[in-house]
Protein backbone atom coordinates (compact mmCIF):
# COMPACT_ATOMS: atom_id res chain seq x y z
CA UNK A 1 0.00 0.00 0.00
CA UNK A 2 1.52 3.30 -1.03
CA UNK A 3 1.21 6.46 0.96
CA UNK A 4 3.09 9.35 -0.53
CA UNK A 5 1.97 12.97 -0.51
CA UNK A 6 1.98 12.87 -4.31
CA UNK A 7 -0.63 10.07 -4.39
CA UNK A 8 -4.11 11.04 -5.52
CA UNK A 9 -5.80 8.76 -3.03
CA UNK A 10 -4.93 6.73 0.06
CA UNK A 11 -6.72 3.75 1.46
CA UNK A 12 -9.62 4.73 3.75
CA UNK A 13 -8.16 2.38 6.36
CA UNK A 14 -4.84 4.24 6.42
CA UNK A 15 -6.67 7.57 6.75
CA UNK A 16 -8.90 6.16 9.49
CA UNK A 17 -5.94 4.89 11.50
CA UNK A 18 -4.16 8.26 11.17
CA UNK A 19 -7.27 10.13 12.36
CA UNK A 20 -7.77 7.69 15.25
CA UNK A 21 -4.13 8.08 16.33
CA UNK A 22 -4.70 11.84 16.64
CA UNK A 23 -6.54 11.00 19.87
CA UNK A 24 -3.12 10.41 21.45
CA UNK A 25 -1.95 14.06 21.32
CA UNK A 26 -5.52 15.27 21.91
CA UNK A 27 -5.84 13.38 25.22
CA UNK A 28 -2.20 13.52 26.38
CA UNK A 29 -1.35 17.12 25.45
CA UNK A 30 -4.68 18.95 25.46
CA UNK A 31 -6.69 16.65 27.79
CA UNK A 32 -9.62 16.61 25.40
CA UNK A 33 -11.04 14.48 22.60
CA UNK A 34 -10.85 15.21 18.89
CA UNK A 35 -13.68 17.54 17.83
CA UNK A 36 -14.41 20.28 15.32
CA UNK A 37 -17.76 21.99 15.80
CA UNK A 38 -17.21 23.97 18.99
CA UNK A 39 -14.51 25.96 17.17
CA UNK A 40 -17.37 27.56 15.25
CA UNK A 41 -18.78 28.80 18.56
CA UNK A 42 -15.44 30.35 19.53
CA UNK A 43 -15.13 32.18 16.21
CA UNK A 44 -18.83 33.15 16.12
CA UNK A 45 -18.77 34.45 19.69
CA UNK A 46 -15.79 36.68 18.87
CA UNK A 47 -17.47 37.91 15.67
CA UNK A 48 -20.75 38.55 17.49
CA UNK A 49 -18.89 40.45 20.24
CA UNK A 50 -17.72 42.95 17.62
CA UNK A 51 -21.27 44.18 17.13
CA UNK A 52 -23.01 43.06 20.34
CA UNK A 53 -21.02 43.26 23.57
CA UNK A 54 -24.03 41.64 25.28
CA UNK A 55 -22.92 38.29 23.88
CA UNK A 56 -20.21 38.15 26.55
CA UNK A 57 -22.99 37.95 29.10
CA UNK A 58 -24.29 34.68 27.64
CA UNK A 59 -22.69 31.88 29.64
CA UNK A 60 -22.42 29.57 26.68
CA UNK A 61 -20.58 32.19 24.60
CA UNK A 62 -18.22 33.26 27.37
CA UNK A 63 -17.25 29.60 28.03
CA UNK A 64 -16.05 29.38 24.42
CA UNK A 65 -14.27 32.73 24.12
CA UNK A 66 -10.93 32.06 25.80
CA UNK A 67 -8.63 29.31 26.93
CA UNK A 68 -6.20 26.79 25.49
CA UNK A 69 -8.80 24.12 24.58
CA UNK A 70 -10.97 26.55 22.60
CA UNK A 71 -8.06 28.01 20.64
CA UNK A 72 -6.56 24.53 20.15
CA UNK A 73 -9.72 23.51 18.29
CA UNK A 74 -9.79 26.68 16.18
CA UNK A 75 -6.15 25.98 15.26
CA UNK A 76 -7.05 22.36 14.48
CA UNK A 77 -9.67 23.32 11.89
CA UNK A 78 -7.39 25.98 10.38
CA UNK A 79 -4.73 23.26 10.17
CA UNK A 80 -7.22 20.98 8.38
CA UNK A 81 -7.56 23.60 5.64
CA UNK A 82 -3.76 23.92 5.46
CA UNK A 83 -3.24 20.15 5.34
CA UNK A 84 -5.80 19.72 2.56
CA UNK A 85 -4.23 22.64 0.67
CA UNK A 86 -0.74 21.10 0.85
CA UNK A 87 -1.98 17.60 0.12
CA UNK A 88 -4.07 18.64 -2.91
CA UNK A 89 -1.20 20.66 -4.35
CA UNK A 90 1.28 17.82 -3.84
CA UNK A 91 -0.85 15.47 -5.93
CA UNK A 92 -2.16 17.97 -8.49
CA UNK A 93 -5.71 17.39 -7.24
CA UNK A 94 -6.72 20.97 -6.54
CA UNK A 95 -10.40 21.76 -7.00
CA UNK A 96 -12.25 24.82 -8.25
CA UNK A 97 -15.86 25.93 -8.50
CA UNK A 98 -17.93 23.18 -6.97
CA UNK A 99 -18.22 19.45 -7.22
CA UNK A 100 -19.90 18.06 -10.36
CA UNK A 101 -21.97 15.94 -7.99
CA UNK A 102 -24.30 18.88 -7.35
CA UNK A 103 -25.42 19.08 -10.94
CA UNK A 104 -26.31 15.44 -10.78
CA UNK A 105 -28.34 15.64 -7.56
CA UNK A 106 -30.06 19.01 -8.07
CA UNK A 107 -30.18 19.06 -11.85
CA UNK A 108 -28.46 22.41 -12.43
CA UNK A 109 -25.04 24.00 -12.17
CA UNK A 110 -26.54 27.32 -11.15
CA UNK A 111 -24.87 28.98 -8.16
CA UNK A 112 -28.26 30.58 -7.49
CA UNK A 113 -29.37 27.16 -6.26
CA UNK A 114 -26.13 25.67 -4.92
CA UNK A 115 -25.12 28.63 -2.75
CA UNK A 116 -28.38 28.89 -0.75
CA UNK A 117 -28.26 25.11 -0.34
CA UNK A 118 -24.67 25.25 0.95
CA UNK A 119 -25.57 28.07 3.35
CA UNK A 120 -28.62 26.20 4.66
CA UNK A 121 -26.51 23.04 4.96
CA UNK A 122 -23.82 24.82 6.96
CA UNK A 123 -26.41 26.51 9.15
CA UNK A 124 -28.28 23.29 10.01
CA UNK A 125 -25.02 21.39 10.46
CA UNK A 126 -23.78 23.72 13.17
CA UNK A 127 -27.17 24.35 14.76
CA UNK A 128 -27.68 20.58 15.02
CA UNK A 129 -24.12 19.89 16.17
CA UNK A 130 -24.43 22.46 18.95
CA UNK A 131 -27.84 21.14 20.08
CA UNK A 132 -26.39 17.62 20.20
CA UNK A 133 -23.09 18.96 21.66
CA UNK A 134 -20.93 17.34 18.98
CA UNK A 135 -20.50 16.56 15.30
CA UNK A 136 -19.07 13.74 13.19
CA UNK A 137 -15.78 14.18 15.05
CA UNK A 138 -16.85 14.92 18.62
CA UNK A 139 -19.79 12.52 18.82
CA UNK A 140 -18.83 10.22 15.97
CA UNK A 141 -15.12 9.53 16.08
CA UNK A 142 -14.50 10.52 19.71
CA UNK A 143 -17.83 9.83 21.42
CA UNK A 144 -18.18 6.28 20.19
CA UNK A 145 -14.49 5.64 20.93
CA UNK A 146 -15.35 6.55 24.54
CA UNK A 147 -18.44 4.30 24.52
CA UNK A 148 -20.71 7.24 25.28
CA UNK A 149 -24.39 6.26 25.02
CA UNK A 150 -25.40 9.79 24.00
CA UNK A 151 -22.90 9.62 21.13
CA UNK A 152 -24.30 6.31 19.85
CA UNK A 153 -27.75 7.96 19.81
CA UNK A 154 -26.53 11.20 18.20
CA UNK A 155 -24.63 9.35 15.46
CA UNK A 156 -27.63 7.13 14.69
CA UNK A 157 -29.81 10.27 14.45
CA UNK A 158 -27.17 11.98 12.30
CA UNK A 159 -27.15 9.15 9.76
CA UNK A 160 -30.97 8.97 9.88
CA UNK A 161 -31.25 12.69 9.10
CA UNK A 162 -28.53 12.52 6.45
CA UNK A 163 -29.92 9.43 4.71
CA UNK A 164 -33.51 10.73 4.85
CA UNK A 165 -32.48 14.02 3.22
CA UNK A 166 -30.26 12.30 0.62
CA UNK A 167 -33.13 10.08 -0.46
CA UNK A 168 -35.06 13.24 -1.45
CA UNK A 169 -32.26 14.24 -3.82
CA UNK A 170 -31.64 12.61 -7.20
CA UNK A 171 -29.43 9.55 -7.18
CA UNK A 172 -25.77 10.36 -7.58
Amino acid sequence: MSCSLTDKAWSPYLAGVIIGLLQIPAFLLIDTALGASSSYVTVSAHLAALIDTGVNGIDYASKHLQGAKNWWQVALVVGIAGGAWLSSRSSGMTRSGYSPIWRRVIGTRASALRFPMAFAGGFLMLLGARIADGCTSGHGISGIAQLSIGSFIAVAAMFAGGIGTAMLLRRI
Partner: protein
Amino acid sequence: MSVMSAVLVGLAMGLVFGTALEKSRVFEPGMILGQMQMRNFIMLKIFLTAVATGLVVLAVLNGFGLTNLHPKVTLFGADIIGGLVLGTGITLAGACPGTVLAQLGAGYRDAWVTLAGGLAGATTFIYLEPTLKPLLLSGGPGKLTLDGLLGMPFWAPALGLTVLLVAGLVLLERWRPWRDDLGADCDGML
Protein backbone atom coordinates in the same frame (compact mmCIF):
# COMPACT_ATOMS: atom_id res chain seq x y z
CA MET B 1 -0.52 24.35 28.59
CA SER B 2 -0.32 27.93 27.35
CA VAL B 3 -2.69 29.11 24.61
CA MET B 4 0.26 29.56 22.25
CA SER B 5 1.51 25.97 22.65
CA ALA B 6 -2.06 24.64 22.35
CA VAL B 7 -2.44 26.54 19.08
CA LEU B 8 0.82 25.10 17.73
CA VAL B 9 -0.26 21.57 18.71
CA GLY B 10 -3.65 22.22 17.09
CA LEU B 11 -2.10 23.45 13.84
CA ALA B 12 0.23 20.46 13.64
CA MET B 13 -2.61 18.01 14.33
CA GLY B 14 -4.82 19.84 11.83
CA LEU B 15 -2.20 19.51 9.09
CA VAL B 16 -2.19 15.75 9.63
CA PHE B 17 -6.01 15.59 9.89
CA GLY B 18 -6.45 17.69 6.73
CA THR B 19 -3.99 15.56 4.79
CA ALA B 20 -5.84 12.39 5.83
CA LEU B 21 -9.20 13.91 4.84
CA GLU B 22 -7.88 15.05 1.45
CA LYS B 23 -5.93 11.91 0.58
CA SER B 24 -8.79 9.62 1.56
CA ARG B 25 -11.12 11.75 -0.65
CA VAL B 26 -13.77 11.75 2.10
CA PHE B 27 -13.92 15.54 1.94
CA GLU B 28 -15.51 15.24 -1.52
CA PRO B 29 -19.25 16.06 -1.50
CA GLY B 30 -19.70 13.08 -3.83
CA MET B 31 -18.33 10.76 -1.13
CA ILE B 32 -20.61 12.14 1.60
CA LEU B 33 -23.75 12.16 -0.58
CA GLY B 34 -22.83 8.75 -1.92
CA GLN B 35 -22.61 7.39 1.63
CA MET B 36 -25.93 8.97 2.58
CA GLN B 37 -27.50 7.35 -0.50
CA MET B 38 -25.84 4.04 0.45
CA ARG B 39 -23.98 3.91 -2.86
CA ASN B 40 -20.47 4.66 -1.68
CA PHE B 41 -18.91 3.31 1.50
CA ILE B 42 -15.58 5.14 1.78
CA MET B 43 -16.93 7.55 4.44
CA LEU B 44 -18.22 4.71 6.62
CA LYS B 45 -14.92 2.82 6.28
CA ILE B 46 -12.86 5.81 7.39
CA PHE B 47 -15.28 6.61 10.18
CA LEU B 48 -15.35 3.08 11.60
CA THR B 49 -11.57 2.68 11.24
CA ALA B 50 -11.02 5.96 13.11
CA VAL B 51 -13.42 4.79 15.84
CA ALA B 52 -11.71 1.38 16.12
CA THR B 53 -8.26 3.01 16.31
CA GLY B 54 -9.52 5.48 18.90
CA LEU B 55 -10.97 2.63 20.98
CA VAL B 56 -7.61 0.84 21.07
CA VAL B 57 -5.72 4.07 21.80
CA LEU B 58 -8.05 4.98 24.66
CA ALA B 59 -8.18 1.41 26.00
CA VAL B 60 -4.38 1.53 26.32
CA LEU B 61 -4.06 5.12 27.59
CA ASN B 62 -6.93 4.79 30.05
CA GLY B 63 -6.09 1.19 30.97
CA PHE B 64 -2.58 2.21 32.03
CA GLY B 65 -3.91 5.25 33.87
CA LEU B 66 -2.33 7.78 31.50
CA THR B 67 -5.51 9.71 30.77
CA ASN B 68 -9.05 10.29 31.93
CA LEU B 69 -11.91 9.97 29.47
CA HIS B 70 -14.28 12.79 28.60
CA PRO B 71 -17.55 11.25 27.43
CA LYS B 72 -20.31 13.75 26.76
CA VAL B 73 -23.40 14.02 28.93
CA THR B 74 -26.31 12.01 27.52
CA LEU B 75 -29.38 14.14 26.76
CA PHE B 76 -31.83 11.97 24.82
CA GLY B 77 -33.91 14.79 23.26
CA ALA B 78 -30.92 16.94 22.34
CA ASP B 79 -28.93 14.00 20.98
CA ILE B 80 -31.81 12.87 18.76
CA ILE B 81 -33.02 16.30 17.56
CA GLY B 82 -29.52 17.72 17.21
CA GLY B 83 -28.34 14.60 15.39
CA LEU B 84 -31.24 14.73 12.91
CA VAL B 85 -30.66 18.43 12.17
CA LEU B 86 -26.90 17.87 11.88
CA GLY B 87 -27.41 14.97 9.45
CA THR B 88 -29.78 17.03 7.30
CA GLY B 89 -27.17 19.78 7.16
CA ILE B 90 -24.37 17.35 6.29
CA THR B 91 -26.28 16.11 3.24
CA LEU B 92 -27.23 19.62 2.03
CA ALA B 93 -23.68 20.87 2.58
CA GLY B 94 -21.99 17.70 1.31
CA ALA B 95 -19.63 18.16 4.24
CA CYS B 96 -19.18 17.83 8.00
CA PRO B 97 -18.10 20.72 10.25
CA GLY B 98 -14.48 19.52 9.95
CA THR B 99 -14.41 18.53 6.28
CA VAL B 100 -15.70 21.96 5.15
CA LEU B 101 -12.24 23.26 5.98
CA ALA B 102 -10.64 20.50 3.88
CA GLN B 103 -12.92 21.51 0.98
CA LEU B 104 -11.73 25.09 1.38
CA GLY B 105 -8.10 24.00 1.36
CA ALA B 106 -8.58 21.87 -1.74
CA GLY B 107 -10.24 24.81 -3.51
CA TYR B 108 -14.01 24.25 -3.61
CA ARG B 109 -15.67 27.65 -3.81
CA ASP B 110 -19.05 26.74 -2.27
CA ALA B 111 -17.25 25.65 0.93
CA TRP B 112 -16.92 29.36 1.80
CA VAL B 113 -20.71 29.61 1.71
CA THR B 114 -21.06 26.47 3.83
CA LEU B 115 -18.58 27.93 6.32
CA ALA B 116 -20.54 31.20 6.48
CA GLY B 117 -23.73 29.20 7.04
CA GLY B 118 -21.98 27.26 9.82
CA LEU B 119 -20.89 30.44 11.59
CA ALA B 120 -24.45 31.78 11.26
CA GLY B 121 -25.79 28.51 12.71
CA ALA B 122 -23.36 28.65 15.64
CA THR B 123 -24.24 32.31 16.28
CA THR B 124 -27.95 31.46 16.23
CA PHE B 125 -27.33 28.68 18.75
CA ILE B 126 -25.42 31.03 21.07
CA TYR B 127 -28.47 33.31 21.27
CA LEU B 128 -30.96 30.40 21.49
CA GLU B 129 -29.01 28.44 24.12
CA PRO B 130 -30.46 30.18 27.22
CA THR B 131 -33.99 29.44 25.89
CA LEU B 132 -33.22 25.86 24.84
CA LYS B 133 -31.42 24.96 28.06
CA PRO B 134 -34.46 24.27 30.27
CA LEU B 135 -36.32 22.60 27.37
CA LEU B 136 -33.71 20.37 25.82
CA LEU B 137 -30.23 20.84 27.20
CA SER B 138 -30.53 19.93 30.87
CA GLY B 139 -31.50 16.98 33.08
CA GLY B 140 -30.90 13.52 31.68
CA PRO B 141 -28.94 10.63 33.16
CA GLY B 142 -25.51 12.36 33.06
CA LYS B 143 -22.42 10.77 31.53
CA LEU B 144 -23.86 7.44 30.48
CA THR B 145 -21.32 5.00 29.01
CA LEU B 146 -21.45 1.40 27.84
CA ASP B 147 -18.67 0.35 30.26
CA GLY B 148 -20.53 2.08 33.09
CA LEU B 149 -23.78 0.28 32.26
CA LEU B 150 -21.96 -3.05 32.07
CA GLY B 151 -20.01 -2.33 35.24
CA MET B 152 -16.74 -3.14 33.48
CA PRO B 153 -13.40 -1.34 33.14
CA PHE B 154 -13.39 0.74 29.94
CA TRP B 155 -10.80 -1.33 28.11
CA ALA B 156 -12.87 -4.53 28.13
CA PRO B 157 -15.93 -3.41 26.11
CA ALA B 158 -13.68 -1.03 24.13
CA LEU B 159 -11.56 -3.90 22.84
CA GLY B 160 -14.69 -6.03 22.37
CA LEU B 161 -16.27 -3.37 20.14
CA THR B 162 -12.98 -3.00 18.26
CA VAL B 163 -13.10 -6.70 17.34
CA LEU B 164 -16.67 -6.31 16.07
CA LEU B 165 -15.77 -3.20 14.05
CA VAL B 166 -12.73 -4.83 12.46
CA ALA B 167 -14.77 -7.90 11.54
CA GLY B 168 -17.46 -5.63 10.05
CA LEU B 169 -14.86 -3.69 8.06
CA VAL B 170 -13.30 -6.87 6.68
CA LEU B 171 -16.73 -8.03 5.45
CA LEU B 172 -17.54 -4.57 4.07
CA GLU B 173 -14.26 -4.47 2.15
CA ARG B 174 -14.76 -7.98 0.80
CA TRP B 175 -18.24 -7.00 -0.42
CA ARG B 176 -17.17 -3.65 -1.78
CA PRO B 177 -13.45 -2.93 -2.40
CA TRP B 178 -12.63 0.74 -1.67
CA ARG B 179 -11.03 1.38 -5.05
CA ASP B 180 -14.40 0.67 -6.71
CA ASP B 181 -15.88 3.66 -4.84
CA LEU B 182 -13.22 6.25 -5.79
CA GLY B 183 -14.55 7.31 -9.18
CA ALA B 184 -12.45 8.33 -12.19
CA ASP B 185 -11.57 11.75 -10.74
CA CYS B 186 -11.40 10.47 -7.12
CA ASP B 187 -14.54 12.47 -6.27
CA GLY B 188 -16.99 9.66 -5.65
CA MET B 189 -18.77 10.17 -9.00
CA LEU B 190 -19.44 6.58 -10.02
